[in-house]
């Protein structure tokens, strides 16, 4: 679960890391009022979960109230696209913060390295720019050290990293202290990624976190109730509906609705549909042991996306029983007015019973396939060539 910049900064403040003072605002009027309280110059920053906000026009400096109104007017409600075309991300709130007098821009982060099974601390004197580009063009400028999981991460250990990065002598202790606190954010808040870019040194030689990128482990949200609210930010309508129903759903750009059981099989289903020339509309993992009601919920979510023109069910029952899935399909097709063809592939536990239930129900517009590849081909055909009005029988 990714936090917005201001939510990350609130966590930093809680752990004693200096951040500029600021306020969050959802309307232009509120943003201007906040700017007047904070004073000028101030920064108006779009709060969206994507990098490259500055380049996209989502961060602007206001010298007076008039400028604050103009900038907030341009940013609130704008759509921001990521550097790789991700999005759009609609800006529904801005963070207004006091301007900073910047002497130097550094980079600092603490990230879970799954390969090494350790936290990785990184520091660079080259902050304020794309750190992946720094790592590529000038690898020596980004110091990377793993934190020993068997020893406490203290100021001395952090100071070694800071020394290696060659930061200004007078602020090394202060940056080392920030690094120790970032590690305590990881441990205390179950954060798996904490990135500060830039970590600035002000003209007064104070070390301040000017940005915050924080990812909280979704498995640990239960012990951070104050963060649970942050999880509700900026979701698309289908994803919000799916979450409410307890389904794992990710919206994609295509028109083939997908339901499979298990994350791996579902990802594989997306791949074979794409190989067959189709474009998946979503990822939906019905999970292990799916019951009939879950299928009704899943179909409700999938069909609420208007782009969907055909749906593929790819089920390999292990714990999941195919007869339960079949019952769910029959129930759902009675409850929901399904306007699009449904291709069903049922294999595994109780598949014969499941296939029998489907055959007996004689559902219009339902097509059975016996293999995963056959089902992918069929759904793609049905997507590009919508069935004639009289197409009714299942095969």
């Amino acid at each position: 679960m990714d936090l917005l910049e201001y939510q990350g900064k609130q966590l930093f403040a809680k752990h004693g890391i200096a951040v500029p003072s600021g306020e969050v605002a959802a309307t232009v009027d509120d943003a201007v009022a906040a700017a007047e309280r904070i004073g000028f110059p101030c920064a108006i920053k779009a709060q969206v979960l994507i990098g490259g906000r500055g380049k996209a026009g989502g961060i602007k400096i206001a010298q007076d109230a008039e400028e604050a109104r103009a900038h907030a007017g341009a940013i609130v409600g704008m759509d921001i696209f990521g550097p790789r075309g991700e999005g759009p991300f609609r800006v529904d709130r801005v963070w207004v913060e006091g301007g900073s007098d910047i002497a130097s821009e550094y980079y600092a982060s603490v990230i879970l390295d799954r390969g090494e099974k350790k936290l990785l601390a990184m520091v660079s004197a080259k902050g304020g720019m794309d750190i992946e580009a720094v790592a590529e063009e000038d690898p020596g400028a980004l110091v990377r050290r793993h934190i020993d999981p068997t020893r406490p991460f203290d100021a001395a250990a952090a100071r070694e990293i800071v020394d290696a990065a060659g930061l200004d002598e007078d602020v090394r202790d202060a940056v080392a202290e920030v690094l120790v606190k970032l590690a305590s954010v990881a441990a205390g808040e179950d954060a798996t990624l904490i990135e500060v870019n830039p970590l600035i040194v002000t003209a007064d030689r104070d070390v301040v976190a000017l940005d915050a990128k924080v990812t909280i482990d979704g498995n640990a949200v239960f012990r951070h109730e104050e963060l649970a609210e942050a999880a509700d930010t900026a979701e698309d309508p289908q994803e919000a509906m799916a979450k409410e129903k307890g389904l794992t759903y990710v919206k994609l750009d295509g028109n083939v609705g997908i339901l499979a059981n298990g994350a791996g099989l579902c990802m594989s289903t997306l791949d074979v549909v794409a190989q067959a020339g189709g474009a998946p509309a979503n990822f939906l993992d019905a999970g292990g042991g799916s019951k009939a009601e879950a299928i009704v919920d899943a179909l409700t979510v999938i069909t609420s996306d208007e782009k969907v023109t055909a749906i593929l069910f790819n089920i390999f029952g292990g714990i999941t029983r195919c007869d339960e899935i079949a019952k769910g399909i029959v129930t759902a097709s009675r409850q929901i007015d399904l306007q699009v063809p449904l291709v069903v592939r049922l294999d595994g536990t109780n598949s014969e019973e499941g296939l029998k239930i489907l055959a007996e129900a004689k559902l219009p517009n339902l097509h059975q396939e016996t293999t995963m590849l056959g089902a992918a081909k069929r759904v793609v055909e049905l997507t590009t060539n919508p069935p004639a009005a009289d197409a009714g029988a299942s095969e």
Partner: protein
Amino acid sequence: MSIIVGSETKLVVSGLTGREGSFHGLRNRAYGTDLVAGVTPGKGGQDVEGVPVFDTIAEAVSEAGANTSMIFVPARFAAPAINEAIESGVETVIAITEGIPVLDMLKTYWKAKEAGVRLIGPNCPGVLSPGKANVGIIPAQFFDSGPIGVVSKSGTLTYQIGNELKQAGTGNSSIVGIGGDPIVGSDFIDILELYEADTDTELIVMVGEIGGDAEERAAEFIAAEISKPVVAYIAGFTAPPGKQMGHAGAIISGSSGTAQAKKDALEAKGVRVGESPTETAKIAVEVLRG
């Protein structure tokens, strides 16, 4: 032979008195696994269909001779339960539980390493050695015994491939679900090493997915240490960057960890990578039969 579980396995199930734990524990026993004990704190002295229940895993080891522990307790209590198992004296801990906080697992991983205990999972379907023992939730009816060792991050995808191998008339020495979480006790490399040494295994099928760099590390390891043929499958080519898909581990950030990068890394080391589960099974059978 087979790996990790077999006829020598003496299983203790933490959470045996719970709904899921009893269902799967007894199912594993019905398959032929030697289920010697259950553990639920405060319920020592009871039994579940004749299986004695103890208060601690250590008691199950000393009283019932358990050497393998399966963890079926809810996520909030699972990391302490795995830690208890690591300290109890068992050789192997298989953690099925899904949703354990990752930084808890980080500590537990190093604890297991230090103690020299083999940890499989968490968030995994377990290990099946067809005809010998099943520890976990893998539906055994879709697998026959045979010369192919399978190691996989994903459950249902493994069932799909295993079933295609069975239909092609072959089978498996063992099937190991290592789990899709960011921190798992055993990676591809650990299992590949066991299959290399296992006399029953002639070929290895490795099933990966987007996220992390376990597949890339495995590619290096295969080139350096594995003499047996390896066939791979990777899921997640169509996953958009930055989106999380179900498994906590299945997340791509930036360019590393993509399905294409993993496929390229494996193919660069001579590992054949199937386009679909079906093609992967087909290649495995083809390589096996020369």
